[in-house]
């Protein structure tokens, strides 16, 4: 027995807080509460992860199928719709055969999930943008939906905390739609990107900036700067991109947090006499044994839809339609950014040829929302979209012909440029998840049934995004421009939000502004489920900031003996 282990059985103790889920927000909750002196247990449905299994430096030719493994087709037909699910790392993603869900007829939804310590923070896209009051108070400005229960000014200090710890590289722009933050030095832009930035600013007055990304560009909190190898989604031996196991979870453990892996949480346990949560019941992923853990507070950070699934599966006599669901809003207002609009082409005047030994920048450019802003006129649709994209020399694998000429044409390359939009997904009651009582996962836990479509507004956003992208590419002299004006299947953005929304009115929302359920005072949901609207910015930074804010409040209540 090493001195690293406590002799006490972790399941025979009562914790101040049990945190369900070890991803971006669960890691923060565990860290903040443990460091505040609380006794915390962090539950993760998957196994631990080790840097030894990182494969970012393994070339594809060392893989048996060079990233075309039949195993992925067989066991992860849904997960493989995500670019990050590869022959390198597919075991991090859930086995679709063991983790089913259903969809309403004609309403497909793709749900990408990881079950491993760190969850999706291991493979996330890392783009990190603040929301502004144009988002938090959007309903007051355009009359659609509901405002968030707090303002930007109230969340800004927590954005600061998260950014300073995580390490966000980026450039300050003073853009009214995209507040600046605490940035590490930005990554550099390519020639084509600088050309686009300058032309778009001059012609349209729009901002083109380098992506704000959770990758450190200088040594930061014990992590080394990015070495530009490229495929972050396969792990990072220098821990340059932010993932929870090697940052927040590590700090939580340092502060005394108990980490319990392979714990598939089935439901929240309630003490009906006091109307308080008393802990959670989980199924051991390996043995299928049912276990319980006791806690004075329960914090769900399981990923938006998993947290809601747990609440829906925790019905009691007092809460027959799902725990903490007196409002009836639980499961409703499901959102996922709409994608599928944009344009791409070639910058024919650029002379740079591709270089196989070029540093691989794991980041692109970003164009913040420019529709329906305080300084622009009202468009024919609500809200707006932002673009991600990039420009650079690439090998021309679509060269025509064959033989030596084809081989040479590939090497000569093309200077490609592309812009793809992420649009706001309006919060609508009729987009929802519920429990499918006829379907259970491999651990006997009832599965979700999805009913979601993007609507006319989302389609209008993508149509406008396609045309606007083409216009901007034209302005920079791009040739062979192709526009794409699709509305991708919901779930494709992998930005699932809503289903346990925050709000001031307990009759219309599940959570208050502190991510605390209105109905059960020691039960919290701290992840994307709490979002009131989706905005169009990548949401993880905001999820983390909200979590830190809520944990500050919770720790304070513990200090005052109010829990």
């Amino acid at each position, binding site marked *: 027995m*090493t001195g*690293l*282990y*406590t002799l006490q*059985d972790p399941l*025979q103790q009562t914790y101040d807080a049990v945190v369900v889920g070890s991803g971006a927000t669960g890691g923060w909750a565990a860290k903040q509460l443990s460091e505040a002196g609380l006794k915390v247990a962090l539950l993760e449905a998957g*196994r*631990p*992860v*080790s840097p*030894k*299994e990182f*494969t970012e*430096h393994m*070339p594809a030719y*060392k*893989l*048996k199928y*060079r*990233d*075309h493994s*039949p195993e992925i*087709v067989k066991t992860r037909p849904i997960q493989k719709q995500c670019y990050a699910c590869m*022959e*390198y*790392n597919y*075991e991090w993603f859930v086995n679709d055969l063991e983790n089913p869900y259903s969809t309403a007829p004609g309403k497909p939804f793709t749900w990408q999930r990881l079950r491993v310590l760190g969850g999706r923070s291991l493979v996330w896209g890392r783009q990190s943008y603040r929301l502004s009051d144009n988002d938090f108070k959007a309903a007051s400005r355009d009359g659609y939906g509901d405002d968030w229960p707090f303002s930007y000014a109230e969340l800004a200090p927590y954005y600061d905390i998260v950014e300073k710890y995580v390490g966000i590289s980026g450039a300050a722009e003073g853009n009214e739609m995209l507040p600046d933050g605490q940035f590490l030095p930005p990554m*550099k*832009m*390519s020639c*084509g990107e*600088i*050309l686009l930035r300058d032309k778009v600013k001059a012609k349209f007055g729009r901002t083109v900036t380098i992506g704000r990304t959770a990758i450190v560009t200088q040594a930061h909190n014990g992590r080394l*700067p*990015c070495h*530009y*190898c490229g495929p972050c989604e396969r792990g990072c031996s220098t821990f340059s991109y932010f993932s929870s*196991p090697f940052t927040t*979870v590590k700090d939580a*453990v340092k502060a005394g*947090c108990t*980490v*319990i*892996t392979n714990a598939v949480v089935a439901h929240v346990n309630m003490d009906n006499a006091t109307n308080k949560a008393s802990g959670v019941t989980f199924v051991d992923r*390996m043995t299928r044994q049912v276990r319980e853990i006791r806690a004075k507070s329960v914090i769900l950070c399981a990923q938006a839809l998993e947290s809601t699934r747990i609440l829906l599966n925790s019905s009691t006599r007092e809460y027959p339609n799902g725990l903490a669901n007196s409002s009836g809003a639980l499961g409703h207002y499901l959102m996922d950014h709409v994608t599928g609009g944009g344009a791409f082409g070639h910058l024919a005047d650029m*002379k740079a040829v*591709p270089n*196989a*030994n*070029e*540093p691989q920048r794991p980041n692109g450019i970003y164009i913040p929302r420019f529709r329906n802003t305080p300084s622009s006129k009202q468009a024919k649709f609500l809200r707006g979209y932002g673009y991600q994209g990039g420009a650079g020399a690439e*090998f021309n*694998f679509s060269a*025509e*012909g*064959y033989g*030596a000429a*084809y*081989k040479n044409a590939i*090497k000569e390359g093309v200077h490609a440029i592309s812009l793809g939009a992420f649009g706001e997904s309006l919060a609508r009651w009729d987009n929802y998840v519920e429990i499918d009582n006829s379907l259970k996962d491999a651990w006997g836990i009832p599965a979700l049934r999805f009913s979601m479509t993007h609507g006319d507004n989302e389609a209008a956003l993508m149509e406008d995004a396609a045309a606007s992208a083409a216009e901007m590419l034209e302005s920079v002299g791009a040739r062979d421009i192709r526009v794409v004006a699709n509305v991708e299947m919901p779930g494709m953005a992998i930005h699932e939000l809503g289903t346990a929304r925050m709000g001031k009115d307990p009759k219309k929302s599940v959570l208050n502004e502190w991510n605390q359920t209105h109905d059960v005072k020691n039960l919290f949901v701290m992840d994307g489920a709490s979002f009131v609207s989706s905005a169009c910015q990548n949401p993880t930074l905001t999820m983390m900031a909200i979590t830190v804010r809520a944990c500050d409040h919770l720790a304070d209540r513990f200090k005052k003996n109010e829990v």
Partner: protein
Amino acid sequence: MKRRDLLRAGVVLTGAAAALRPAMGQQNAQQPSELTPAQSGVDASKDLSSPNWKPAFLDEHQNETLIILSDLIIPATDTPGAKDALVNRYIDLLLSAEPRDSAKAFLNSLAFLDGESIRRFKAAFRYLPREEQDAVLHGMAYPKSNSAWTGETTGPDPGHGHFELLKGRISMAFYSSEIGERSLGWDGAFAHGPFQGCDHSEGNHK
């Protein structure tokens, strides 16, 4: 509950900074099947170079045709070509493992190539002299356009579709091989220093 039981349950008892490390070690030793072969460090790059290699999916004629075709699509120049990269062996491996429909589509395209060769030169592709093989491929390699004079369509163009399918497979197989990657100039290193970006002055971006 005993410590052994806790480990089996995946329960990690922690109380110190380095506590994740031993717990992970235990877990990895316990569940090797939960790592992908790549995550376990398996290097499959030499699997296809065995002297005793036999096709798992293609018959002898299909395999020989594929070798000849791949060498025409991506020949050895100042760098090695598809034949050197054993492109046929990798494609055979994929065909043996992938869904029946896509494997069948590949065989159909290979058969179309033979059909065109027989129609035009009375012999299967692999038996044609190089000039006639080129003639067959040139007839398929580019999309057919409408008549420049009358604007009339030339009818369906299945040949180009089959050519693109075969070429796409061969190209992917070649450029995903070590030989293919090195033919593009790759030096074998996994990282090449910070991304320097554009350092041109305004108006001089290239």
